[in-house]
């Protein structure tokens, strides 16, 4: 049985740091907070969070800060452009300086893979990874799981279509692996042939006898007919080689990847579309007003999940 105090003082670097029961506990706790935010509005009084965003981020950073402030806590103001980092200070030294200010929690986003684990190794206070390079982004996975739960009351037995850049998109890797821990989930991976799910992830799903199949972008409209959720990701220009050839390849792929209102026919009544945002051309704005659009609610859910994590890792009312 997982208990509230099991989380106290821990770090969250990767979703794998939590057992399945612990993940479910966090999701339940987030729901509890969302239903009764007033109960938690003073729970972070006199506590301070240090959000160390070494990369620009509006959504994640904003969501963490709002979560802390709405629970009565304080947020340490950190700007990497104004810090000694711009004078060439090493990350390890910056972290030790920050620790001297006695934060109760550190949230870090950094462009290098493994930087969050490195920071956790240096710091003695709890740390949440808000994205380390192309590596891990566990709070995104938790808010995605929370959103699925929000949509259909269970994560098990979900048929999900994941579309877009499945090769390099960390959110889809982490979500697929996490969902495979729940029974009866089915996956359809829709991508251009050059951006398919990595083989090691497919091998893991195969080993667990998970039901999945792969399709091309042209099949998007047909595969969503019997799905519960369509999880879209954008295809990033920077993933293609620089120069004209890369530009051509990117344009060819992205022109065939677009979901618009006219494609949303004969769907399951409770079908929903998720997207970690920002979107580019893959998701038309005319979808926003349909009952299937759920991506803005998904982004909103980040607040509840981050509140839950901040509360649990810092020991809540203590």
């Amino acid at each position: 049985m997982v208990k509230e105090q099991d989380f106290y003082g821990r770090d969250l670097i990767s979703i794998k740091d939590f057992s399945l029961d612990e993940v479910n506990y966090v999701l339940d706790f987030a729901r509890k907070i969302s239903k009764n935010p007033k109960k938690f509005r003073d729970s972070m009084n006199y506590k301070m969070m240090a959000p160390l965003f070494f990369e620009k981020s509006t959504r994640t950073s904003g969501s963490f800060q709002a979560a802390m402030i709405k629970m009565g806590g304080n947020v340490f103001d950190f700007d990497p452009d104004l810090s000694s980092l711009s004078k060439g200070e090493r990350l390890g030294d910056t972290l030790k300086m920050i620790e001297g200010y006695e934060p109760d929690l550190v949230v870090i986003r950094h462009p290098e893979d493994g930087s969050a684990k490195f920071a956790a190794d240096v710091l003695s206070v709890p740390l949440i990874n808000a994205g380390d390079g192309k590596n891990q982004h566990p709070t995104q996975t938790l808010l995605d799981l929370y959103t699925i739960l929000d949509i259909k009351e269970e994560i098990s037995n979900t048929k999900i279509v994941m579309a877009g850049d499945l090769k390099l998109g960390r959110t889809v890797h982490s979500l697929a692996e996490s969902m495979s821990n729940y029974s009866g989930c089915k996956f359809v991976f829709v991508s251009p042939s050059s951006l398919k799910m990595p083989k090691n992830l497919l091998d893991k799903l195969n080993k667990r006898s998970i039901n999945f199949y792969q399709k091309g972008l042209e099949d998007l409209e047909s595969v969503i007919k019997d799905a519960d959720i369509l999880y879209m990701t954008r295809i990033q220009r920077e993933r293609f080689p620089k120069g004209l050839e890369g530009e051509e390849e990117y344009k060819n792929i992205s022109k065939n990847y677009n979901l618009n209102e006219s494609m949303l026919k004969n769907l399951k009544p409770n079908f929903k579309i998720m997207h970690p945002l920002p979107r580019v051309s893959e998701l038309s704005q005319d979808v926003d007003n349909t009952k299937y659009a759920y991506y803005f609610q998904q982004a909103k859910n980040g607040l509840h999940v981050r509140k839950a994590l901040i509360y649990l890792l810092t020991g809540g009312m203590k």
Partner: protein
Amino acid sequence: MKDQIIGYIESGIVIDHISRGKVWKIAEILGVDRQTKGRISLGDGYETKKNGEVKGVIKIEGINLSNKQLNLIALVAENATVNLVKNGKIEKKFQVEIPRLLENIVSCPNFGCISNNSYEQVYSKINYNLNKKIFSCFYCIEEFNGNDLKFVY
């Protein structure tokens, strides 16, 4: 053809049961080159008594092995055995073993990993899962097999 296993040493090391073709890499790990004094024998392609597999053997006079070298040898030839020889007798014999945590011995193959950023001076830490025979970076948790390892000398 019966093999005559290579030359005698008085004191030093004998590394036996080296996988075929790995003798030269191990010589490199041991820092053996033309300047090395004392007797050196490198042999490869010997048939083993057990199952007819072929193996390599190295004998070097007058050297000691560091822990780091032992770990590197284990990474190159997991089944190798080391004999420490003193006054013509084997004083100690043991099989090399890949440690569960390799610190600053091999680098993470993920170029984007913070442990490869020389400016940050983060020493590499690689975990080894003996059952799965898989390596993973302590920092970026990327998993990889032994062929992707790069040694830090």
